[in-house]
Every structure is written in structure tokens, then in C-alpha cells.
């Protein structure tokens, strides 16, 4: 009987403990209420420390608050791929130079790109204050902006951050549907044409300015060398196979939607562009494996010397010119140019891909986060980053400010790449910044992959357009 009572007591105790835990969990999970901006971080200190004239000049340059009011604050910045040179250099600088100026530490996240979107969505939508700052690629922005604070007013108050100093495509991608600015372009990439200078020189080829010239060059390279002329990537991976397709579509005067949000990429211009895109596979300009390649694998074909031409983001240039990484002859002979245009149809138009950076609506350190944004988006910091060629792990050519892209010193140490990138960005455009975009992108990338693996082009484009229209209809874009 004593034993029974003990068991009973133990059981009841367990029930009480678990019930209490449940109650605590329930009470500790209030409805998500955005944190009010307090005007001060957790480490705010009232007393201003003594400031040297040099420090004062530095603070004024970046429009930072004097007296280190947020000293001791630790910001968490959710971003992918922190070890990539374009991010690594910034992360390093943050905890030296920015820390010295403000006393704010910044912890950079390092989430793999493949799972980054899920991490962002989970953090943003769970009203979590774990991360103070988010970086996001433009295509994901529309879904995240409800969870970020608008910063248009803040930006207006800072002299050294002028929106006119950013490519228009980048600024558009940083805005929400309401026209408000929710982020500033942290990293941005023009879509460029890369080629093997030595191969072109040996074969007497000119750098192509039109798709037709590129195809002529491809024929010569195919006949005269054992390389694939191109390295295309038709595989399914976060919409990467749409970049090149869009360059063709847009340069042919086509578009994804008309002014009423009806898909039109299956019209004559769309079909012509798609047929051309898929024909490169059929003509064996690119490896048969291209049908399953993602962007990295496509780039690797070029780096390993198996392909003579490639189109991709400019940040890849530092990989392609890393002599320890690639096949012999690649690093010294990687040339770049703007994307070819459609013959007789004007300027090339490509996708300008941008990573805006914004502040989490639920952050407890919004003001400290804004201090960091003012510093990291300054032209001066951008210039320092792209000038630093001290080590491969920090060597990057990526900048977003037009003034930095056109800076002669910057161009001198980056082989003129920033200036060419800037020219591309003048004509670059962004994808539709609408919440439905990711679903639409899923339709497009699967359809393109289908066509690359043999599906008929016109019927597939028609079906893709019908599927996209259904998504838009569900999103309420059409009058009933």
C-alpha cells in the first residue's frame, strides 16, 4: 500500500510538473506584437565618452551617434554564406572598425544558401527577436517585408546614403508593394558574359555583342577545340535556370507579364527566345549534363577549362581568376563583357540581382541596427572592401553604389570589372516583387527544365502561362 501511495504521489507530481511547464510555455508565448522602436539599444549609455577629433570625424562621416550609446549591444545578422569573400570581408570589418566606433558587436549568421529562405521565413514569421537584421535576395522580399520596418524616412535623414547612387533595379527590389523602402542594397550582381580570352585570340574571334555572334563563335570553338563553347545550366535550383532565359526574353522585346499581370512569355517573342535558349543544348554548344546543372556546376565547367563561354554573376569573377582553384590557363584568361543583345533589337537587358538588408520588426535593437546599416552601406566601406586584395578569402569585386562602381581606383585594382558591371546595371531590371513570385519562379524553372529535357516548347510555355495565370488569379490580380 505504501508503495502504491508513492507511485501515486510520483505520478501526481509528474502531472503537476508537466501541467506547470505547459502553463509556463503558454504564458510565455504571447501573440506576436511588433516591438516598438525604443530609440535605444540594450546597452545604451547615457554618458557620452570623451571623443577624439579623429573619432568625431569618423562618426560624422558615417552619421553615427557620438558617445557610443549602444555600446555592449550585440546584433545578430541573418545572412547566408558568410564565408564567401563578398560577405566575409564585411563581417571581418564589422567587428573591428565598426566596433571601435560604436561598441556594437555584430554576429553574422552563416546559413547555407539552399536552406536560407526557410530560415528567413521561419525567423521572420515567428515574431522572433533572435535576429535584428535580415539580408534577403530580391525574389524573397515581397513575402518578408511585412516583417521588416520601413526605412524610407530613416534613409532620407542620412546624407551619405543617397538612393540615386544605387542602380534603379536595386532600389526597386528593396521597396515593398506600398512603395516604402524596407532595405538597402547590401550586395548586388549584374549578370555578365565571361569568356576565355586565350581561346578567342587563338581562333581570331571577337567578343560577341549579339546572340548571333555568340552562336557563330560557338560554332568555331566547337569545330576547332575539344571544349564546349558554352556552359549553360538548365537544372532546377532556386530559379537559376531562368536568368539566362530572361536575358534572351527581355533582349528580344519579350516580358513575363503585360500591364494587367497576364503572363505573356508564351507569345512570339517568348517562344523565339526559348527556342534559342534550348537550341544551344541541341546544337551541343553546352555539355549534355547542363540539363541537370545548377549555376555553380555550370560555373565549374568554365573554371575547370571545359567550356569557353559562361554567363553568370560578377561575384564569380574572383573564383574564376583564382589560380589555385581552376584549370591551367583559366585564371589568367578570363575575360568579361556585357551580355550579348538580340540582333537588331537594341541594348541587352539582364536581371540585376540584389541582396537588400533590412531590420527585423521584432528586433529589440532597431536603433543599433540602423547605426550598423548606416555604416555598412556607406560608399567608403564599400570602396575599402573592393580595394582589399590582401587574401583570396576577402578578395571581392562586389559593390552596389554607382560612385564606387565608377571609381577609377576601384576599377584599377579590379581590372575594370566594376565599370562594366555598372554599365550593365544601367539597363538591368528586376523580377516582379510580388508575394506570388516564388511560386511563379517554381513554374518557370520546372518548365524550362522540362523543355531542356525534351518537352515541346510552345505547348510547355502555354501550360506554364496557364499555371502562372492560375496563381495570379488566386492572388486576386484580376477583376472577376
Amino acid at each position, binding site marked *: *500500500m505504501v508503495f502504491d501511495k508513492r*507511485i*501515486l504521489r510520483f*505520478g501526481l507530481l509528474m502531472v503537476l510538473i508537466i501541467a506547470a511547464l505547459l502553463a509556463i510555455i503558454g504564458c510565455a508565448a504571447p*501573440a506576436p506584437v511588433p516591438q516598438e522602436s525604443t530609440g535605444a539599444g540594450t546597452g545604451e549609455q547615457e554618458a557620452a565618452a570623451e571623443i577624439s577629433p579623429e573619432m568625431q570625424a569618423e562618426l560624422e562621416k558615417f552619421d553615427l551617434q557620438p558617445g557610443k550609446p549602444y555600446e555592449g549591444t550585440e546584433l545578430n545578422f541573418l545572412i547566408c554564406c558568410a564565408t564567401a569573400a563578398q560577405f566575409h570581408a564585411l563581417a571581418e570589418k564589422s567587428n573591428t572598425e565598426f566596433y571601435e566606433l560604436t561598441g556594437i558587436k555584430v554576429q553574422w549568421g552563416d546559413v547555407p544558401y539552399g536552406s536560407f529562405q526557410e530560415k528567413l521565413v521561419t525567423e521572420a*514569421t515567428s515574431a522572433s527577436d533572435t535576429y535584428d537584421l535580415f539580408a534577403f535576395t530580391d525574389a524573397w522580399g515581397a513575402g518578408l517585408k511585412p516583417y521588416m520596418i520601413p526605412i524610407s524616412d530613416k534613409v532620407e535623414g542620412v546624407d551619405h546614403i543617397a538612393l540615386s547612387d544605387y542602380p534603379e533595379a536595386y532600389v526597386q527590389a528593396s521597396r515593398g508593394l506600398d512603395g516604402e523602402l524596407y532595405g538597402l542594397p547590401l550586395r548586388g550582381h549584374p549578370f555578365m558574359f565571361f569568356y576565355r580570352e586565350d581561346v578567342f585570340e587563338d581562333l581570331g574571334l571577337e567578343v560577341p555583342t549579339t546572340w548571333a555572334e555568340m552562336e557563330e563563335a560557338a560554332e568555331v570553338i566547337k569545330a576547332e577545340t575539344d571544349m564546349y563553347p558554352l556552359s549553360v545550366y538548365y537544372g*532546377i535550383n532556386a530559379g537559376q535556370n531562368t536568368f539566362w532565359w530572361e536575358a534572351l526574353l527581355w533582349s528580344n522585346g519579350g516580358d513575363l507579364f503585360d500591364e494587367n499581370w497576364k503572363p505573356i512569355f508564351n507569345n512570339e517573342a517568348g517562344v523565339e527566345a526559348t527556342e534559342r535558349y534550348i537550341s544551344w543544348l541541341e546544337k551541343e554548344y553546352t555539355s549534355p*549534363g547542363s540539363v541537370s546543372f545548377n549555376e555553380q556546376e555550370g560555373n565549374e565547367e568554365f573554371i575547370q577549362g571545359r567550356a569557353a563561354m559562361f554567363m553568370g554573376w560578377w561575384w564569380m569573377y574572383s573564383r574564376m581568376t583564382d589560380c589555385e582553384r581552376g584549370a591551367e590557363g583559366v585564371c589568367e584568361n578570363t575575360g568579361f563583357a556585357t551580355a550579348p543583345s538580340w540582333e537588331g533589337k537594341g541594348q541587352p537587358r539582364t536581371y540585376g540581382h540584389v541582396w537588400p538588408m533590412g531590420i527585423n520588426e521584432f528586433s529589440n535593437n532597431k536603433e543599433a541596427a540602423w547605426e550598423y546599416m548606416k555604416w555598412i552601406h556607406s560608399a567608403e566601406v564599400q570602396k575599402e572592401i573592393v580595394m582589399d586584395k590582401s587574401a583570396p578569402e576577402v578578395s571581392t569585386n562586389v559593390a552596389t553604389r554607382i560612385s564606387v562602381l565608377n571609381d577609377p581606383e576601384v576599377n584599377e585594382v579590379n581590372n575594370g570589372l566594376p565599370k562594366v558591371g555598372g554599365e550593365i546595371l544601367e539597363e538591368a531590371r528586376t523580377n516582379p516583387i510580388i*508575394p506570388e513570385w516564388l511560386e511563379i519562379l517554381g513554374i518557370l524553372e520546372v518548365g524550362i527544365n522540362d523543355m531542356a529535357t525534351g518537352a515541346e516548347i510552345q505547348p510547355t510555355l502555354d501550360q506554364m502561362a496557364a499555371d502562372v495565370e492560375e496563381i495570379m488569379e488566386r492572388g486576386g490580380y484580376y477583376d472577376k
Partner: protein
Amino acid sequence: MRGKYTKFVLLTPALLVVLVITAYPLINTFTLSLREWRLDRSPTPGDFVGLDNYVRAFGDRFFWNSVQVTITFTIISVVMSVVIGLAMALILQKPSKLNTLVKTTLIFPFAVSPALKGFSWRFMLNPSWGIYDTMMDAVFPFASDVVWLAHPFWAQFWLAVSEVWGWAPLIALMFIGALGSISPDIFESAKVEGANNYQLFRHVTLPLLRPVIVIITLLKTIFSLKMFDQVVTMTGGGPGRATQTLNYFVYLQGFRYIDMGYASALAYLLIVALTIFAIFYVRALSGEGI
């Protein structure tokens, strides 16, 4: 006192844990499946829409594609896993030092993370530098032009192979255990009666292994139905939608397109299918027959 209440008291903590970590999410997911909720529009669930999300699923050709892919994948992977596992068990059942060593190492493929398996197989099948692709080209020169992950059939096949690579050794270990429990006297008697090796296998081994085969088949079926990791890392659901399994389709809707209402409805449809197999599995385990 002991007989009447003790068992309930002892069970209470476990039941509470099950309620919190299983029943609550199940109920919550079901209610979400009856609501409109796009996370990119609102942080909180929207209006109740009745069975709209389920109706949408049944009219969604991509959903039906994922059902068909899941069934095909399940059949290929279950049949291959069980047959290869059984063959391995028959080869390795005789005691020897080599067999002991092999049996010890058999568990390793199962211990490899499924996501890593997917990445590894993707690299190994790469037409430019993949080791398996090179080996296949050497053995079957007529297939040298085949890009394994670019063809719908082969992509499904290799996805299944990546799964079988991990599961067949584990199943072999299960079968080795089951074979060891069969009395040698039965085989001796059959041999005395003049049975050859094939007849021994067909009329003695297989019937005696039947309960184990049923249990393993059901278990593997449940795991195959919820195939996800290798789809993400090996094929991305492609080519086209050829390897887009139902679980991956649910993930796309929920975490890529952040349509939580629809994703919850799809998840529930998967749960129903899994529950049916789980019931059969439990009945088989408890010896009630299926």
C-alpha cells in the same frame, strides 16, 4: 489500488508528452488545413475556408503528379531494398570471419545522413566528373550519352538506388537475425526429403521469413512514402517534376511558397496514407495479420 489505478498513473506522463508533441500539432495542422493562410500576407491564420484547400489539392495536377511519383518511388525502392537485403542476408548468414566483418560494416550506409547521401550521389552521377557515371560508361558504353539525373525514369531510378544503398544493408541485418532464428532441424529434414537449394529457399526459408518480410516491407513503405531529403539535395524534384515526391511538394507549398493552409491540407493527406500503412504495420507486429 495497485491493479486499478497504478497503470494509469504511470502512463500519465508519457500520455501528456504525446499529447503535447503529437496530438496538439496534429489538431493544429488540421485546423490550419481548413483556413486560408499565406504567411507572406499575414502573420496569423486567416478565415476558415472549409474544405477548400482539400478541394484545391484534388484539382491540382501537380499534387497528383507528386502522388504518382511517390507511389512509383515507393514501389521501386521497397522492392529493391527487400530483394537486395534478402540476397545479402542469404550470402552473409553463414558464420565466417569475413562475414562477421562485412556484417559489422553493413550499418554504415544507413548511418549516413540522407541529405549527405543525396549530395554524394549527385556528385557521383555527374556526367563530367562523377565516378559512377564514369564506371557506367566503361561497363555500358552504349549508355555513355545518358545524363542520369536528366531523364525522368533514370532520375527516379537513381533516387531509389540512393535510398536502397542505405536501407538494403539494414534490412539484410534484420533478415540475418530472422534467418538465425529458424531451427536448422527444419532445413535438415527438408534435405533428407531430397529438397535442393532452390526448393529449400522457396518452400522453407521464404514461408518462415514471411512475417519478417511483411514487417520490413511495411516499415520501408512508410519511410519511402515520406521521402524528402535526397529529393532536395540530389534532384531538386527534377527533371521537370519527375522526382517531386508528395513530402517535397508539401515542403514547397509550406516553406518555399509559404502557403500554410494549403500545405497543411496536403500534409494531412500524406498523414492519412501513412496512418493506413502504420495500422497494417502495428497489426503485423502484434501478429494479428494484415
